[in-house]
């Protein structure tokens, strides 16, 4: 079987177990202990921060003022959108539209 299918199956099973385990084990399980909670507190945000930086490399290269402005406005709108609407999906959508829109606007104003 291809590597990706093995990864998907393990990821699917693992994700399900992660979500359902506290429902089965309840409040008094060892998963509730303080060391585990402390590691958990840092692990998620750190992985997401690293993925965020890694995903930047998939965007336009080389880094210049044009892509810097798009990124600034795109991320800025996500930040503001999330502050006002408290909705991840909606703020992501607004950020995507702003990112694409800023690109079109800059090209329109300054040409290619």
């Amino acid at each position, binding site marked *: 079987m291809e590597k990706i299918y093995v*990864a998907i199956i393990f990821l699917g099973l693992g994700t399900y177990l992660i979500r359902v385990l506290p*429902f089965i084990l309840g409040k008094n399980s060892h998963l509730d202990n303080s060391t585990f909670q402390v590691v958990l507190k840092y692990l998620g945000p750190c*992985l997401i*921060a690293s993925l965020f930086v*890694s995903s930047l490399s*998939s965007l336009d290269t080389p880094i210049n003022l044009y892509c810097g402005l798009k990124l600034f406005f795109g991320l800025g709108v996500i*930040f503001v959108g999330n502050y006002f609407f408290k909705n991840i999906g909606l703020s*992501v959508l607004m950020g995507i539209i702003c990112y694409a829109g800023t690109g079109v606007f800059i090209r329109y104003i300054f040409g290619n």
Partner: protein
Amino acid sequence: MFKMFVLGLKESFPLIFGYIPVAIAFGVAIKSLGLSAQTGTFMSALVFAGSSQFALIELLKQNASLLTMILICLGLNLRHILYSFTLLPFLKELSLGKRYLLGFGLTDEVFAIALARLSCLEGNQRFYWMLGLQLGAYLFWIGGTYLGVVSGQFLVNSWPTIKPGLAFAPTALFFALLIVMLKKEIILPISTVILSTFIFNHFDLSSLAIPGAAIIGPFIGIIGEKTWKKST
């Protein structure tokens, strides 16, 4: 009880705005890797976790090992343990079978809506309402992925301006998740991880950047926490 299920389904509609564009972007990313519509839809149907699915795509691009891919993606989903613990008091009177079922669809967005609504419902109402909510979210996610893989290229060709927007989707999602999780005590480990990831990427060691973050981040966080406690 059917009324509760329909109510949950209705309350999942706002998720369209969040799920569909991200799912389409995921579908396009799947297509750009040369994977089939079946593979993309299969992944969305089985995993149902946007951030780890995008992470898997990033790791596939970096040609990471199978073990690294699984551990990193599962590490990303560990936060869901906290979601289940938080919702447990509302759901503990349900039978184990029902809780098994509800565990599958506990995504970030479902958790946020459920946390706000579950206290207004009682007993079995909670089960049927959550089932409706999760089913709606699940269908939007799978539908969006399929749409992205099948017609993503058509959408991009018809409206070329959306192409950079779709490429930006994973970055946007990770950034949104990051700001939601941002707290004072996390700033130091996150700053360290951002710096370390830049350094790993700069020296063409991108496959080590994310596993490195999984070790460096919590380590710096725990050390920082102990130092802070000692000084106060």
